[in-house]
């Protein structure tokens, strides 16, 4: 067969067309991977967004982002006591893994607290100010310190360094502003569930 016949051959044409298409898409993908390159690891951002940002270090990482990075590397998701079960479930949903119970080694889930400085006892050493990861303590050397309650994440980190032990962690209680309706309770899935208690 001569050259013209070779190029007019159906099979050759098909092969050539697909080769051309392959090359074209290859170029397109190559360009896209450069043009739309994602900076950083997006999963770390997503994990970090689920963590409570208390920056307490109870997970034995120096802050929430390092822990998020560690989780992205495959570390256990149950090391965050401030986030508690809720955060574990959200992380499990995000990462497609089974939720585990909170690891007791890193602490237990406690109700949210806010630091409170007994101001009369404060000696103004600034140790708690240096310890606060979110700059929620106000004060200066040899002057009284106080906690900005709205900014406090309740991480406990200021309690330890205080030389006169004048910091209390006060539990945040529900007030009339934060109160909300509760879902109805004792709602059995089937009618006999409800009756069983009485019948027995």
């Amino acid at each position, binding site marked *: 067969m001569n050259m013209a016949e070779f190029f007019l051959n159906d099979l050759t044409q098909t092969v050539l067309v697909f080769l051309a298409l392959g090359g074209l898409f290859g170029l397109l993908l190559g360009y896209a991977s450069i043009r739309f390159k994602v900076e950083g690891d997006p999963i770390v951002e997503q994990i970090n967004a689920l963590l*409570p940002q208390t920056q307490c270090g109870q997970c034995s990482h120096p802050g929430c982002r390092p822990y998020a990075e560690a989780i992205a590397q495959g570390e256990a998701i149950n090391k965050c006591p401030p986030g508690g079960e809720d955060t574990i479930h959200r992380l499990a949903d995000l990462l497609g893994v089974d939720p585990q119970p909170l690891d007791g080694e890193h602490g237990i889930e406690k109700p949210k607290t806010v630091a409170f400085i007994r101001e009369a006892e404060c000696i103004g050493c600034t140790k708690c100010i240096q310890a606060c990861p979110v700059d929620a303590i106000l004060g200066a050397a040899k002057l009284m310190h106080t906690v900005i309650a709205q900014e406090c994440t309740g991480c406990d980190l200021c309690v330890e360094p205080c030389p006169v032990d004048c910091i209390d962690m006060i539990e945040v209680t529900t007030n*009339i502003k934060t*109160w909300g309706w509760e879902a109805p309770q004792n709602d059995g899935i089937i009618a006999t569930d*409800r009756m069983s208690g009485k019948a027995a």
Partner: protein
Amino acid sequence: MNSAEYTFHGGIRPVEHKEDSNTTPIEMAPIPPMLVLPLQQHIGSAAQACVNTGEYVYKGQLIAQAADANGANVHASSSGHVVAIEPRLIAHPSGMQDTCVVIETDGLDAAIDASGYPNWQNLDRTELCNIVRWSGIVGLGGAGFPTDRKLNAKNIKTLVINGTECEPYITADDLCMRERAEAIIRGCEILKHIVGADSVIVGIEDNKPEAIESMGKAMPSSPDWKLVTFPTKYPSGGEKQLIEILTGRQVPRGGLPADIGIVCQNVGTALAVKEAIEDGKPLISRITTFTGQALSRRGNLEVRLGTPVSYLLDYMGYTEQKVPRLIMGGPMMGFILPDAGVPIVKTTNCILAPDSAELPLPKPAQPCIRCGFCAEACPATLLPQQLFWHSKSGNSDQLEKHALSDCIECGVCSYVCPSSIPLVQYFRAAKHEIRTHRAQQLQAEKALERFEARQQRLEREALEREATRAARKAAAKAKAEESSRFADEADPVQAAIERAKAKKARLIQQNQPGAQQNAETALQNLKAKLASQQSSLQQAEVDGKGDKIITALHASVSRLEQQIAESNTEASSQDAEK
């Protein structure tokens, strides 16, 4: 009078029970011995007390000032002494306490001097708005949104006046319209003037013929004013539902009526605005329905805000029930009062005291049978069934997708549910859950921001420290260099060595040929010195001076003679060398 052309989706027609309380005229409630005025009586933020314990206050005196734009002023509703400003149980479904100003009344009901602006047409909209704000007026229909906030809206075409009162049992607006139509219309005129609306539509359900008649009579006969009646259906009184009935338009999701050029006000609010502006009377009383089979007298009372409910129940002849249940609001949207001692507030349109037969306790919930009645009845066109599943599983994403936030909590779904599932309670809980979660997320975001700012600050400080350390080091080095150069020039030891060297060089130079002349001069000098010393010695001997001086002079003379002799031998040897 027109009939409405439109209607809204769903809705129910519960037994009305309106005739229980709408047959007697509005009665003025007596002054209670104690008034308890909560600092927050509406949606928004609490006011700040501006009176002190022990102070005497007059009726109409400002006792708490709004702290921000969402706040509302609170005024004393009768005269007396402030005996306490303390947390008291208030009318709130939580059954919690909130700060209240407690006034022990003196029965004089002495009012402060107040005069209104009967010629309010001369005032501009901002001034009128400020009067409304000062008077502490909030929406009296139920929710209690600060009225001046609504009136500040721009580009309003239509003012809708809500005289629907769709909830069973409540007749406060009905009676108000029957008896005070003139004043309500005056209020509407003021509101129209403030918002700059072109037209006014008053909407009343057709189960209030007397109210429709009296409002029709009071209304100006102008094409801008329309009185529209429509069939009784719950919840036509919902703001969005009423707007749809009257105009056929829907308020966009998440939006306000102002977005489609409409402001909606309750008739009671219109009356309060009229009294505030024309009579200078702040919001210190309201009309409240007292109804239910547990009361021997049922009707509407004009009550001072802060009057304890228990006082008014006694006044209306309340018989204590086995299972006492007092409901504030109507049977659909009201809530059970934690205690009869709580005070009447701005949003209290009804106190319902049923006996046990009248409003039986809800039946236990049965499983959902997927009948879909709730979806048919929902006035917000939601799918309560889907919302129910997602609320139970706590799936907030799905809840948001199904527009839970559009739920007006009217209770229609729970009412129609054949399995008596308390749907609305699930939705309220889910809404609260979502709100709490969002607040937590917001807090987390804020904490992250602060944490990052702190990290940046620490890094910056470390860099600055590093920089100052480097600068100090450089400075020290420069100084050291400087001082070493200075030492080269001025070191005394070095200078002495230099000098010695120079002297030595000079001496060497003296020993060079050509220095002979110098040597001769030195010899002559020595001879001259010897001569002077010899004459001094002779003089000393003549004068008879001390032996010491004479001996010294002798030694000096002999030394000089020796030196001269040495010089001579040196010179002669040099000569010999030559």
